[in-house]
């Protein structure tokens, strides 16, 4: 293993890290943390989407969502394989972890319960995945991950297009428009929240310092809005953000962050802005679908073990 200084020097020479032997302990720790979040996010999207696929209005759309789920599981497989190569016991990680210890964003712990919510997930959540993974692909200093990600963004592009195509169709249909708007109303802020603490509150800096990712949380949030907001505007769907030409960036037009009413699936805008500590507290509690989704992943292995 190398020291942090040796790693920094090699990175400064433009070299990629090709495995734990060429990294320091804190580099590996930071990398592992990033990989667990990525793997868990992709993995948990599978049962979340599978439940929502039941609302597909056509056989062809059911096939599309199932195809998306297969891609997501493949992406999860990449992240866990990288972790295994770092010496992590991934069977234990996936099958023996408590649901509340999974690191996927809180957004997936709020169940998707209609076709509108399914396609907004493709249009918003998969766009967030695309933004985050593109950044990692472009900037990561970890060679094996960079090479494994070549295909991933192509697949996320298809998920995103599936979401946009359907959002456009539902927005133009007077009987479906309001239902789509309701899904966007809770899922837009949910995705903004996904990118995490604003830069001035962020505690872990090793992701940027070690070149594990390139853009900061606020920059990634801006990148996401730079395509999500104009897209929603183009199909006549309202979102609480707009481009401020003077500041040259997207501005959120409502209190942010806010508290979320899980049962009513709505933001408590009337209560105004809350602190990020309150948001972190809600994330730590996890959302209503957390246990069910993790159980859907873990159940088969447990049943087999019991039968043996």
């Amino acid at each position: 293993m190398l020291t942090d200084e040796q790693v920094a020097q090699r990175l400064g020479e433009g070299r990629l890290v090709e495995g734990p032997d060429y990294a320091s302990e804190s580099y590996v720790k930071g990398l592992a943390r990033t990989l667990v979040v990525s793997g868990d996010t992709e993995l948990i999207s599978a049962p979340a989407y599978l439940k929502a696929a039941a609302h597909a209005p056509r056989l062809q759309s059911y096939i599309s969502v199932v195809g998306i789920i297969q891609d997501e599981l493949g992406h999860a497989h990449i992240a866990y394989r990288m972790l295994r190569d770092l010496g992590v016991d991934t069977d234990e990680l996936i099958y023996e972890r408590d649901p509340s210890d999974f690191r996927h964003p809180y957004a997936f712990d709020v169940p998707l319960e209609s076709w509108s919510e399914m396609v907004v997930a493709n249009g918003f959540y998969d766009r967030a995945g695309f933004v985050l993974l593109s950044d990692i692909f472009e900037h990561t200093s970890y060679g094996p991950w960079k090479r494994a990600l070549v295909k991933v963004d192509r697949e996320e592009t298809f998920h995103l297009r599936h979401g946009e195509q359907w959002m456009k169709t539902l927005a133009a249909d007077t009987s479906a428009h309001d239902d789509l708007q309701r899904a966007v109303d809770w899922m837009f802020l949910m995705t903004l929240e996904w990118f995490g603490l604003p830069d001035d509150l962020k505690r872990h800096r090793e992701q940027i310092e070690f070149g594990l990712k390139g853009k900061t949380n606020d920059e990634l949030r801006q990148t996401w809005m730079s395509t999500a907001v104009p897209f929603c505007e183009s199909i006549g769907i309202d979102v609480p953000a707009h481009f401020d030409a003077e500041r040259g960036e997207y501005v959120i037009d409502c209190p942010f962050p806010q508290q979320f009413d899980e049962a009513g699936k709505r933001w408590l805008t009337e209560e105004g802005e809350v602190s990020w500590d309150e948001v972190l507290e809600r994330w730590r509690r996890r959302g209503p679908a957390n246990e069910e989704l993790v159980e859907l992943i873990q159940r088969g292995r447990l049943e087999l073990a019991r039968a043996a």
Partner: protein
Amino acid sequence: MTAATVAEIRQALAETLDPEYPVGLVDLGLVRGVELDGGTARVEIAYCSLGCPCIALIEADIEERLLRLEGIERVEVREVFEPWSRRDVSAKGLRILREAGVG
């Protein structure tokens, strides 16, 4: 303006890209027939697999692209259940797929 020809429809299909990989539908070997009947363009497509998750997107892309051609008022995309394999992909298509990490 003169109405579009079958050759122009083929060219438009060649420029229509697969939803995942930046390869045109002709290079991918999916286009199995093109017919022009007045203002109606009829296209026959074989998909890479029966459970291809991109069928609806590819159909929508074909329709959107061909309707931009002069004199095309209607587009009919018909799925043909013909076999497809990597041998149907052009040399250019294979090169692009390799760059994207496939094949």
